[in-house]
């Protein structure tokens, strides 16, 4: 965006950040993610007036489609999944820039056609050569697509235009593969033109962690080892692996969730205040705290993995992981993982961070709970505070986004009795009932070139350094504990906290 534009003024806050002339190419456009998230997000952005005039959307897939079929598909996806109401004039604006290129990833002709399409769009729609390539493809196809982009000159930036690559997790399955992947990608795209999507970081609640901590005065003074007892970060799903057996088996919950989402949440919760809110300063603090994460000495007692067994989930009878289609009966893949880590710095030394994730748990929920120590001295007698738990601040990431503060309060009556109460802030109540979807924010940021909310290479590699020893230990020792579907995980996980004199929150 040119800074010499006289119509732009930082004080003029009504004007939204509109992306400059640009287009988005989606590989794997027929996939679920594309239909349910990407296409609706593009429409929602257009509807909110945040896309530049002439914005173009190019789909690339194997299916035999004409431009019209593609437009129809997008139309249906938008009607079904978009957050904002469907408006004909917005659709008319979008449809002019929609193209479809048919082909497979190893098909040189198709990539030549893609290049032709992009050149045609530059002329017809004025996209100015600025294109983002969204790789919504299986990990094994990454290298092929990236190489094809290079081979056909699609990654070349010329005359001030940009070409960006957007990639989805998994970013490898261990440190070595992550480094290889980074090498492949960075050989073609410069590091600052590669955007790794961790859709959690696009969520309002996650961005609010920073606002909560650094814009207020009442939380930060107690956000350290003098007051905090421990931190629990949970991401629970109620669904099983569904049709993703091929992807999931051998990967497991820890690689699928802890490595990216939970460690990112940990970084945001535990990091020091960045010197500014720009991408470099944020990445510096996140890298610092991830680098200070220390694994427990005895991985056998301080990590737990599990597999869901058959059971009842919310009134429905469901099968166990080993009975799922396409899963080896002897599979050791974890569908539940809980680990304890500490952070070696002055702020957090000695404070455990418990991370857990799993499938087929009680309900779908993601939250960060900062649990505080008990008051060092209580003037009330033991019976008065019997029901009082530890104070806590809970950041509810999803669903029902918001923040809960738990503290003790006197029960009305003649005797002194103190019980836990909670004070709630709900987004849905205080702000718009429909916050922007994470993908809206992230796609817009890609087009604007704003990399605040995207994990960088170093963060990805540091996360693997944290997880790799655990995975290696699990490979060699024991096998996953079984837990009935619809419960909050294996007994072993409860025992792990009990040994520390703590217990898991029921989220």
């Amino acid at each position, binding site marked *: *965006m*040119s800074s*010499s*534009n*006289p*119509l*732009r*003024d930082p*004080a*003029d*806050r*009504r*004007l*939204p950040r*509109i992306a*400059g*002339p640009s287009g988005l190419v989606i590989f794997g456009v027929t996939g679920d993610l594309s239909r349910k998230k990407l296409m609706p997000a593009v429409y929602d952005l*257009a*509807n909110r*007036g945040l896309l*530049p*005039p*002439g914005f173009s959307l190019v789909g690339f897939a194997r299916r035999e489609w004409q431009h019209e079929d593609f437009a129809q598909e997008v139309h249906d996806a938008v009607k079904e999944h978009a957050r904002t109401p469907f*408006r004909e*004039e*917005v659709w*008319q*604006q979008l449809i*002019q820039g929609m193209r479809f290129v048919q082909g497979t990833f190893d098909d040189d002709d198709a990539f030549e056609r893609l290049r032709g399409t992009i050149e045609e769009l530059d*002329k*017809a*729609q*004025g996209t*100015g050569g600025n294109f983002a390539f969204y790789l919504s493809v299986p990990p094994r196809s990454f290298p092929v697509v990236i190489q094809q982009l290079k081979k056909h000159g699609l990654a070349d930036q010329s005359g001030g235009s940009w070409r960006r690559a957007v990639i989805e997790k998994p970013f490898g399955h261990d440190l070595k593969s992550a480094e290889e992947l980074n090498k492949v990608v960075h050989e073609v795209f410069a590091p600052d033109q590669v955007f790794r999507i961790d859709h959690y970081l696009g969520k309002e609640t996650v961005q609010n962690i920073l606002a909560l901590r650094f814009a207020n005065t009442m939380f930060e003074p107690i956000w350290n080892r003098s007051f905090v007892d421990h931190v629990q970060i949970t991401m629970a799903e109620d669904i099983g692996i569904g049709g993703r057996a091929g992807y999931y088996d051998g990967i497991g919950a820890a690689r699928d969730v802890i490595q990216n989402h939970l460690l990112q949440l940990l970084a945001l919760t535990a990091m020091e205040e960045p010197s500014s809110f720009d991408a470099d300063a944020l990445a510096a603090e996140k890298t610092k705290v991830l680098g200070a994460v220390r694994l427990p000495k005895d991985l056998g007692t301080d990590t737990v993995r599990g597999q869901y067994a058959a059971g009842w989930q919310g009134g429905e009878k469901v099968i166990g992981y080993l009975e799922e289609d396409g899963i080896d009966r002897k599979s050791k893949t974890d569908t539940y993982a809980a680990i304890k880590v500490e952070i070696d710095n002055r702020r957090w030394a000695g404070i455990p961070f418990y991370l857990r994730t799993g499938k087929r748990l009680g309900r779908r929920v993601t939250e960060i709970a900062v649990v505080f120590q008990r008051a060092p001295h209580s003037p009330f007698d033991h019976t008065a505070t019997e029901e009082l738990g530890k104070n806590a601040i809970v950041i509810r990431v999803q669903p029902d986004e918001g923040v809960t503060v738990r503290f003790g309060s006197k029960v009305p009556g003649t005797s002194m009795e103190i019980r836990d109460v909670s004070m*709630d*802030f*709900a987004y849905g*109540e*205080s*702000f*718009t*009932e429909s916050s922007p979807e994470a993908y809206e924010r992230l796609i817009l940021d890609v087009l604007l070139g704003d990399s605040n909310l995207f994990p960088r290479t170093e963060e990805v590699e540091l996360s693997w350094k944290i997880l790799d020893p655990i995975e290696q230990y699990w490979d060699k020792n024991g096998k996953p504990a079984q837990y009935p579907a619809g419960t909050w995980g294996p007994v072993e996980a409860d025992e792990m906290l009990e040994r520390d004199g703590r217990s898991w929150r029921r989220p």
Partner: protein
Amino acid sequence: MKIDLTDTTASKVNKALVQGRRAIGTPAVGMVLTLVIVTDEENAYDALKAANDASHEHPSRTLVVIKRVSRSPRDRTQSRLDAEVRVGADAGTGETVVLRLYGDVAHHAQSVVLPLLLPDAPVVVWWPVNAPLDPAKDPLGALAQRRVTDTYASEQPVRELGARADAYTPGDTDLSWTRITPWRSMLAAALDQVTCDVKAVEVEGEEFNPSCELLAMWLADRLDVPVKRSLSSGPGLTAVRMNTDRGPIVLDRADGSLATLSIEGQPNRAVALKRRDTAELIAEELRRLDPDDTYASALRFGVERLSTSNGSHGKDAELPDPERNADTEGPAAKGEGATAVPTPLEAAAKAPGKEAAAQAPVKKAAAK
């Protein structure tokens, strides 16, 4: 849930609000602001409907102040307050109190409103019609951080713009300004696409639509070039034409919904620029509650400094000759008694010597 109170007081209304909240089972409140709508019976329904729609984005307590007209001397001596308290599904996502003021109390509306404001939350006053001449000095306006008027709804919109400029106090804003945000962002986006010097601008739209004037004044203020206001049959704004050293940039919207952006050397593009309804405008207005300096600056530029299509400067403005443009700006500026006109630094730096010299009178006028 709805509670009707006849001949009541603010404290009884407060009790009814608490009672209503308890009855629907949500004693906690997450409302972020109080919106006071000051209106007459005729416009109350539409305004309240818009506010309720907007409350989906900004849960608020909405107080509708309806001043009833007294038709006889006896009516005037009696004063009465009737209230209708709505909570739950009847009131969007917040709470609504419709206050009807009869007789004397109509002149002391602030005494009813003050006890009903949410504690420690911002207050916005909105006059859908008949805004006071000086909103900040109005007793109700004085309670608010944000005062929303709508010159579009007035008898002589363009003259009223002048009055708004004279009485401007930080926190004032006008829905005619809100209406043009999509235009402004699209024009800014257009200038993002080409690096060029704008020489002259024409804003075309229906008569008696102050949004056209505001857009023209904003462009004149930001670009520091002559801006011509010309008339069309609408609906609303119909076109903005910018003459630049790289050829014309035109944003044309004939039908009030889909516009065409044409830039010299680039293909024409369709852009959605639908006219928005009042609920959307109010929702945008409530999004930010700090003073809108850009509005102030555009408003203070002064309507009389725009040239109109009937005016003698119209033809000059079309010419992309900087010297001639400088000439047209000189005389126009003399009639200007208004306040600060910030000159964009970039423009000043780029301006040739003569043009810069011609701007001097403007700055002197500002100093007065």
